[in-house]
């Protein structure tokens, strides 16, 4: 084989994505993992939806616009079975200055060191994704959280009613080293709606100190009509100036990556057990949850309706719980002691083995959130 033929072959292999694994810095880019559920309504707060994807509707002024975000099964984009779908349920055509609707994925500093940000050899990087929906222009911002007053760069992109792969390449930033730690350092922010606070200037198409007015210039509004929809999947961020084919990972692998940020124990049937514990008094129990994998940091405990969670005492009766809490003094990224207090058992004594369980419902859940 000639040298030219060898090079051509190598180029073909690279183009096909046959070598060079672990290119995608984004987690759950194919929108497969949905531990919290598959449909979410957003009103006035920011919250996570599909794993690793935050939706922030709080720009400073709350919009009257409302949306439902969901994991949508798709059949019209070969290679992808799921997308994150936004559906506008209440329109807002009177946009106050501080309004914003931002879809984000946030990265730990230790996971983006390969960008070499803040050094003379800072790398270009490329963000690619598939979108379709109501025809609009939106913006993608890359935001450095670590540098004082933040640094940002942005580009706009178009959405049409057919699936289209958007490829946006960004210059490396020679200013602002990202911390090599487990804290939030870099955000990918999709601006889908914004008021003059974010649109009043000139879009920051080169890295610079973040100026709010330059973050989302030129975008349309997702909230302009209840007819509006937005679908996104196949999100990839990789070092280099070329977009390579989307790096598909197995569901199990993607789930394990997501569990660093969220571990969700939901009942699969009535009286499904969550954990084994010990009574510490006649009214209180401790339940140990060990995390696999270790979480990013000590997590927040989030649970469903408390009346749907019970303690099974030593006569196997389902006893109501007064409150659940965690304890920073004993908890860590490797596990948490959940304290169940004010339990209404008649027979429980200190030292008894107990179980935490769903009540007579499969709606119960207990989760640990260490998102960024």
């Amino acid at each position, binding site marked *: 084989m000639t040298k030219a033929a060898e090079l051509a072959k190598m180029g073909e292999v690279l183009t096909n994505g046959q070598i060079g694994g672990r290119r995608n810095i984004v987690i759950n880019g194919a929108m497969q993992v949905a531990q919290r559920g598959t449909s979410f309504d957003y009103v006035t707060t920011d919250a996570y939806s599909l794993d690793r994807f935050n939706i922030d509707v*709080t720009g400073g002024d709350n919009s009257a616009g409302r949306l439902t975000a969901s994991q949508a099964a798709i059949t019209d984009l070969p290679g992808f079975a799921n997308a994150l779908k936004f559906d506008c349920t209440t329109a807002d055509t009177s946009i106050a200055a501080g309004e914003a609707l931002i879809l984000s994925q946030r990265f730990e500093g230790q996971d983006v060191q390969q960008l070499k940000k803040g050094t003379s050899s800072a790398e270009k990087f490329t963000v690619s994704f598939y979108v379709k929906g109501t025809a609009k222009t939106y913006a993608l911002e890359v935001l450095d959280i670590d540098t004082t007053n933040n640094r940002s760069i942005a580009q706009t992109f178009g959405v049409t009613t057919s699936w289209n792969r958007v490829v946006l390449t960004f210059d490396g930033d020679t200013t602002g080293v990202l911390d090599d730690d487990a804290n939030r350092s870099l955000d990918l922010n999709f601006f889908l709606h914004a008021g003059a606070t974010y649109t009043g200037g000139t879009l920051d198409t080169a890295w610079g100190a973040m100026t709010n007015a330059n973050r989302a210039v030129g975008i349309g509004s997702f909230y302009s009509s209840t007819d509006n929809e937005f679908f996104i999947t196949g999100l990839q961020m990789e070092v280099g100036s070329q977009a390579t084919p989307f790096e598909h990972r197995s569901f199990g692998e993607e789930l394990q990556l997501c569990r660093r940020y969220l571990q969700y124990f939901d009942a699969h049937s009535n009286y499904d057990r969550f954990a084994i514990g010990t009574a510490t008094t006649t009214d209180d129990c401790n339940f140990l949850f060990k995390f696999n994998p270790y979480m990013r940091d000590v997590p927040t*405990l989030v649970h469903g309706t408390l009346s749907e969670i019970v303690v099974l005492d030593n006569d196997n009766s389902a006893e109501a719980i007064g409150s659940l809490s965690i304890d920073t003094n004993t908890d860590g990224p490797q596990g948490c002691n959940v*304290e169940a207090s004010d339990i209404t058992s008649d027979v429980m004594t200190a030292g008894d083995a107990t179980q935490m369980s769903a009540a007579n419902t499969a709606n119960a859940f207990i989760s640990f959130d260490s998102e960024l």
Partner: protein
Amino acid sequence: MDIKSAKYKTSKITNENGSIELTFGDDTTCQVPLTVGNRHYQAILEWAKIDGNAIEAAD
């Protein structure tokens, strides 16, 4: 983050403040560790800097 209130909870193991019960604007709650790397704890500290907001003492 739409925070309505925040209140310390005492650990029954150590008898010290062990977490904060955070109540959101829609009245849902979560239990937040006193850990600077936790986003809910960071949001509570920012919220508490605003005049009129304070983390309530534990019962």
